């Protein structure tokens, strides 16, 4: 089921910002989307993906730093679930796609990113210790230190 309105805030884990541009789904719903053929689009940077990758049948990796020039590689007629580490960068990427004509019904953001994906025990390739250790923080958390590829 699509949820359109609430968004994870990178600044405060107790607050949620309201946004209406991008539909968001949780990792569990993402599993259902994947089963029916949706493509995951991972916007984390290369070094993050080398450490830990989503293990799904269909995935495209376009780092956020290259997204502006490479987003046209994505098919506009496919269902795309945009993912990252915490759901913050992927939200911006999903918004970017919708602003560039992609269908907001077919392009969604996965809330809470790899952090929640790992917590749920969904399949990954690589070392999850970095995610588990940083569980309390997250990218761009208020007052926190910058993580690799953050923001």
């Amino acid at each position, binding site marked *: 089921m699509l949820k359109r309105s609430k*968004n994870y*805030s*990178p*600044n405060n884990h107790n607050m949620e*910002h*309201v*946004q*209406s*541009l*991008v539909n968001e789904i949780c990792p569990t719903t993402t599993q259902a989307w994947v089963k029916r053929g949706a493509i995951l689009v991972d916007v984390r940077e290369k070094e993050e993906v080398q450490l830990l990758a989503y293990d799904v049948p269909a995935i495209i990796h376009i780092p*956020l*730093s290259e*997204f*502006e020039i490479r987003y046209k590689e994505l098919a506009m007629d496919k269902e795309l679930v945009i993912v990252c580490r915490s759901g*913050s960068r992927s*939200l*911006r*990427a999903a*918004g*970017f796609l919708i*602003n*560039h004509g992609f269908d907001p019904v077919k392009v969604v953001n996965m809330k809470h990113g790899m952090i929640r994906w790992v917590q749920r025990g969904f399949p990954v390739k690589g070392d999850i210790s970095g995610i588990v250790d940083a569980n309390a923080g997250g*990218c*761009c958390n*208020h007052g926190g*230190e*910058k993580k690799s590829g*953050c*923001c």
Partner: protein
Amino acid sequence: MNIKVLGPGCPKCKTTYNNVLEALKQTGVEAQVEKIEDIEEMMKYNVLTTPVLMIDEVARIKGRVADVKEIKELLTQ
């Protein structure tokens, strides 16, 4: 002049905002400075990497901290 610093409130965004204030102080240029942390507002500008420094609605620096020297140069162009 209107200056906007777009970012989710991370350290890099705060540094950029502070650098803008310092650059304005050093140059004596008058400007309205806004810090935009709201995700929906940011998406209106198609922001991907943050922070973004916008001067008069034009994105001048994206995805990195703008230092005081380069902001001063942008202000006095």
